[in-house]
């Protein structure tokens, strides 16, 4: 067993027993970290591995969240409505947005993805049967494999289970031959094209995988909060995921998770002392880009010689 697998198993175990030693608030923070961690990891697959920096990843988080809210309230609360349908919807959204967006790259890709995510914001903000600006509230938690997730303990295990599964899936993908092709595209798209890879198809698939997992994160978030609002689509949501990836270190899934933890903990800590959370957030962002572009993981690697 590699040290990676051991660390992963230990982390899952620690998360599972966490409620035994911590209060309700801390447990909720941990769940929030895991949900945002899944979202940030999905963005990192796109950014750090395929080299496609998206400023509109909130589109899929929001679609997953909204479809989960609709399905759980309208069609009954089960596995299909809680996870499968939202993931599928996010995948469809990713195919459509991806079809348009991967035609361009670099700054154009940034602008297009940002604009598309704001289109969802605009539509959900206006459409009455989606609750307009109030969103959808009172979303029940599903019953999965006969277990009612309305119980806090069961929900905790469920969040850990989904987050662990998403982590393993994404880790498997970036280590697979497919993941290596993505890294090749990141390093030199023209060369990969010349070698004979259908670069566009790979990029679209990466976009859809990242979008689907982001949709799962959104669905989890709806079940966590019991509601979803158009804010989920807002550029801020994409920006926060981006910040998590950058703080943690792009191109390392563990870094994205670490970044999510740092972000959520800092947010809960700072907002109890000052109202200037956004200022601090922006300044952190700027300082990391200027002085630590490799994020926490990059800085650690430099210090203690941790290997990639």
């Amino acid at each position: 067993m590699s040290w990676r697998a051991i660390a992963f198993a230990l982390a899952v175990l620690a998360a599972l027993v966490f409620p035994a030693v911590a209060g309700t608030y801390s447990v909720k923070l941990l769940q929030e970290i895991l949900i945002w961690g899944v979202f940030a990891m999905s963005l990192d697959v796109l950014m750090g591995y395929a080299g496609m920096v998206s400023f509109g990843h909130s589109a899929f988080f929001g679609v997953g969240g909204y479809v989960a809210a609709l399905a759980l309230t309208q069609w009954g609360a089960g596995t299909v409505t809680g996870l499968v349908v939202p993931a599928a919807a996010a995948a469809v959204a990713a195919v459509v947005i991806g079809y348009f967006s991967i035609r361009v790259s670099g700054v154009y890709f940034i602008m297009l993805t940002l604009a598309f995510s704001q289109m969802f914001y605009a539509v959900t903000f206006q459409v009455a049967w989606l609750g307009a600006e109030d969103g959808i509230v009172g979303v029940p938690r599903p019953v999965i494999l006969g277990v009612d997730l309305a119980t806090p303990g069961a929900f905790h295990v469920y969040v850990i289970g989904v987050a662990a599964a998403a982590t393993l899936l994404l880790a498997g993908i970036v280590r697979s031959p497919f993941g290596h092709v993505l890294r090749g595209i990141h390093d030199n798209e023209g060369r990969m094209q010349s070698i004979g890879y259908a670069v566009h198809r790979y990029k679209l698939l990466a976009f859809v995988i990242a979008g689907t997992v982001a949709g799962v994160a959104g669905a989890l978030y709806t079940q966590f909060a019991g509601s979803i609002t158009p804010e989920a689509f807002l550029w801020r949501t994409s920006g926060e995921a981006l910040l998590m990836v950058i703080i943690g270190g792009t191109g390392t899934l563990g870094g994205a998770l670490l970044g999510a933890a740092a972000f959520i903990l800092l947010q809960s800590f700072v907002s109890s002392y000052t109202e200037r959370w956004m200022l601090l957030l922006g300044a952190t962002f700027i300082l990391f880009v200027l002085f630590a572009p490799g994020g926490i993981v990059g800085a650690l690697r430099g210090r203690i010689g941790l290997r990639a």
Partner: protein
Amino acid sequence: MLLSDLLAQALNGLSYGVLLFLLSVGLTLIFGMLDVVNLAHGSFYMLGAYAGLATIAVTGNFWLALLAAPLAVGLVGALMERTVLRPLYRRPPLDQVLLTFGFIYVFEDVVKWIWGGSIRSIPPPDIFARSVNLFGGAFPSYRLFVIVFGLVVAVLLWLLIERTRLGAVIRAGVYDAEMTSGMGINIHRVFTGVFAFGAALGGLSGVIAGPIQSAQPPMGATILVPALIVVVVGGLGSLKGSLVGSLLIGQAEVWGKVWLPGVSMAMIYLVMAAVVLLRPQGLFGRPLK
């Protein structure tokens, strides 16, 4: 719908389009020169509106605000380029985009800190405070002023870029910065100047928008999206594209409200999607590699 209503709507679209032009032309100028998509450009617009408010609070004069606010915002832009953007020119261009993204948060919160989060509005100057009779209906005269003002700025910009020595230097820098620097031009000074000038245009548009759209801290992030859509539609780095894209998006916004009530906000995105599908580089953009 009466013909007079149609004309009034078209004029509304034109005034919004002209406003978008003042904003997006700075964005496109900065990109053309520095290869940076300045995501904090909406923040310059917001800073302009608040600097305008502050000037009016002290002097009570709108015209003074129209002069002071762009200067102040231009100074902020110059400082930003000198201190944080310049060290990143050797890095991949995305790092600079990320950096400007961080500034959206910083500027918005600083403004909230100083002026609070409430909605304010800039009163229009006295001579444009009334409506005029147009096509048998009342039309705010300030909007007519915005249209004329924006078109005058467009002409002046065109003259500056195409007919002056400074414009020639800028065009040369856009074409090949390294070669221009080899010809003995201090390209770094040009970079700072263009960034400051683009920021000042953003600030200017903020003051101009003040009497039409109310000022509040999130306004910068909100206006950024239509401005980006304009440059996607018109073609990044093209002044002509910025003008045509702005006027097109201005009309799309207004007619969306007429034709698609309920989902009107989606209209401009539909226009964008159509353009991207047919011409990924935008209407006047250079072909993508």
